């Protein structure tokens, strides 16, 4: 259970990216976060694993206060939260297998990282994750030799290496074509349904929201403007979320 209470984030320039946002996500739910670009979706997701420190408010995860965690406790929290990015954020010059193994860094002893050594079990596990997303044959290629869809699969495999209890997906399909978008979303759905991993996924397209999400929250200028089920988004709600001038297509 993830509880976000009165979360506010004001950036150094005075921009209010999140304004008193509160919501809850039960364990195992697929929650979609929607809203315009710049509405605070990315900031919200990054506050949850403290890539960005919130200005005010509290985030509780299974009773543990993420916002008050010390750097060392943060390491233990982060390693149970996988993250998938819009631009994949792979290390281009490293091999695919190294990128996947990087998901294990929260577990391995930092001293061994000097020697670039991972335990044998981790390497086997990495191969297994690559098999799961269907690109085991690419393990020894450089990450930038892969196509966009393949790179995002590596990103998912990296998140899976963390044995996550929760995955934060920041517009995971925004840089991909519709066919690839569905295949990536299917992977997330499978992880959600089969492994019971909570997924928070920010999305742009409502058809994807309808198809994959259990529940939706919507942000507009940092404020929570909608919380409910995908089917509840009617034309009026749509205009609340996306603004008066927005038109619904498809």
């Amino acid at each position: 259970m993830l509880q976000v209470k009165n979360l506010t984030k004001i950036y150094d320039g005075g921009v209010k990216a999140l304004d008193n946002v509160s919501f809850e996500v039960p364990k195992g739910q697929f929650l979609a976060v929607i809203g315009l670009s710049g509405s605070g979706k990315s900031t919200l997701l990054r506050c949850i694993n403290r890539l960005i420190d919130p200005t005010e408010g509290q985030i509780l995860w299974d009773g543990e206060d993420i916002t008050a965690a010390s750097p060392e406790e943060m390491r233990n929290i982060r390693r149970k939260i996988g993250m998938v990015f819009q631009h994949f954020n792979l290390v281009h010059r490293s091999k695919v297998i190294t990128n996947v193994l990087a998901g294990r860094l929260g577990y391995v002893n930092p001293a061994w990282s000097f020697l670039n050594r991972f335990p044998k079990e981790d390497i086997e596990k990495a191969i297994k994750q690559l098999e799961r997303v269907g690109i085991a044959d690419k393990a020894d290629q450089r990450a930038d030799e892969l196509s966009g869809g393949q790179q995002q699969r590596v990103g998912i495999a990296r998140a899976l290496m963390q044995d996550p209890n929760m995955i934060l997906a920041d517009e995971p399909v925004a840089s991909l074509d519709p066919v690839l978008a569905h295949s990536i979303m299917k992977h997330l759905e499978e992880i959600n349904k089969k492994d019971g991993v909570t997924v928070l996924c920010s999305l742009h397209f409502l058809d994807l929201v309808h198809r994959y999400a259990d529940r939706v929250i919507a942000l507009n200028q940092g404020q929570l403007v909608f919380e409910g089920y995908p089917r509840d988004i009617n034309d009026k709600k749509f205009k609340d979320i996306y603004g008066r001038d927005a038109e619904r297509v498809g």
Partner: protein
Amino acid sequence: MNEKKSSASAWKSIQIGLAVLLGLFVYAYGFDVTKVNLEELRSERRQESLTRVTRTLAQPDIIGYEQQQAIVTMPLYVPCPAGGLLSTLPEADTSGAYLTISPACAAPGETVQVEGFNFPNNITGPIRFIPGNDPLNVVELGRESITTDSDGHFSASFLIPDRISDAPQFIRVTISESVGKPYFTQNAKDTWDKIIETVFMALLATTAGTILAFPISFLAARNLMKSVRSPLTSVSLSVLGWPIGMGLGYFVVNQVGKFTIPLSENIVVSLLSVIATPFIFWFAIRWALPQEEIKVPTLSVRLTRLLVIFIAILVAFFGFFQLAGLTTSISLGIEKALGSLGFLATFLFQVSDILRITTPALGALAAGGALASFLGRIGQRTAEKSPAARVKTINFIVASLAGATIFGLSGWLVEWLYQVGRVEYTFWGPIIVGAGLGLLLAFLTKPKATLPTGMVVYSITRTILNALRSVEALVMAIVFVIAVGIGPFAGMMALGLHTIVSLAKLYSEQVESIMPGPLEAITATGANRLQTIIYAVIPQIIPPYISYTMYRWDINVRMSTIIGFVGGGGIGFLLQQNINLLNYRAASTQMLAIAIVVASMDYISSVLREKYV
């Protein structure tokens, strides 16, 4: 409206006019200061010497021949004797090369016609007036030369200098003929030796510079350092940890050294230790640092591990000392046997010496770093977990201690540099001021607030880098010449230091321009700072690092050619010496060597860069 426009354009014209005037003024002053003067260039004297030097430079002294020299002399009277020419002048021997002079006597300032016969064909040689009545006198006057035609004949007019004597004086023509096979001159050999020295000086300087610039570059990268913040408790405890740890480390490692040195005289013992210590170290570390742990270990397990790591590190230092002893024994033993490869033994000996000197320093650094980070962590925990009031009290104590330490050490440095000799100024005063500042800082900061330690380290590193970078390597070489004596070692040290600071700056700018995405992704997996650098930063910066290192090697080769001007070894020493001796043909050889080396370095580095980057 129109008026406004025209006035604006008039104002603009005035501005342009003023700018042109200002430019004129600046450049006029520049001409005056740099003493631009073409008059000098036009003077005949200058042109003549310029031509002469240029022609000499065009004939580098590389290849020589055995010279067969023939000296032909002919006496003449200056001025003509009062009683007419005496018949004591010998007749020239016309069987070989000979000279005729007409007239056979002349007053100073007059011109005589000198003709030569039976000389070798098409050859050039100096024609000189020899004062005194010894035809082999080394003193000679005049700077003309003659060239024979295809019949071995020449004819030249010669101006008689102002040397008067009753005895006959001489006109001397010296001709040299190259015979036998060409050979490299001594100058060419010296140039070869020195250019090799130069290239290797640059290589060592670049290697040393690269190795040290690498870690420093991370400290000077804003994007990595900006997020490093820690509470005052932790900062103060780290500050205390550094000097204490370094002192302890130095002491302990030196003790290990003292214990080791008698042992390392026995070659069997040292050989066994050198083989055994890596294994012991490896297994101890393997046991004490498990690769992956899901559960948090108990306190007693952690303490045991810490102890094992400590012992393992002591064993490692023991191994270092033994290695140094072993290499010394080996190098001394094989020096004779190696013969011309004796430099390998010298290399081993020097490496062992470097090992012996650096091991205590390394130990001090390691212990300082370890204790500082350990205490820092304790400080971090205290600041996070304890109530604010208690943290505040602790802050007062540790911050004043840390301030006193920093200022006390600075005071000691001042005392060492300026020899003030007054304890109240260089010891007690700074300590009290430092403690006061520490108290003030603890008073002003909120107990749980974090300080931008990263940015402080960043600023200090940047300042030191910029200050050192502004000192030319040539100037640094002067200092190192004093420290280690004249020679290539001093030049290597100066170039190395300059390489460290300039590469660290270039590198850190590369770190600042990496893509932030992977950094974010690796941080999100729970990796700590070190792991983030290894897995997200280093893969991104390898290509520019290689490229910059090669560029720097290039610069170092160029710099090392002139570092000899101040005694830093390399080819610059020869070049300067030959220029000062007006030996332009030799200097020309060295310039040629420099040009060839620099051009080929340029080519090689561009090829390598293309291939690997």
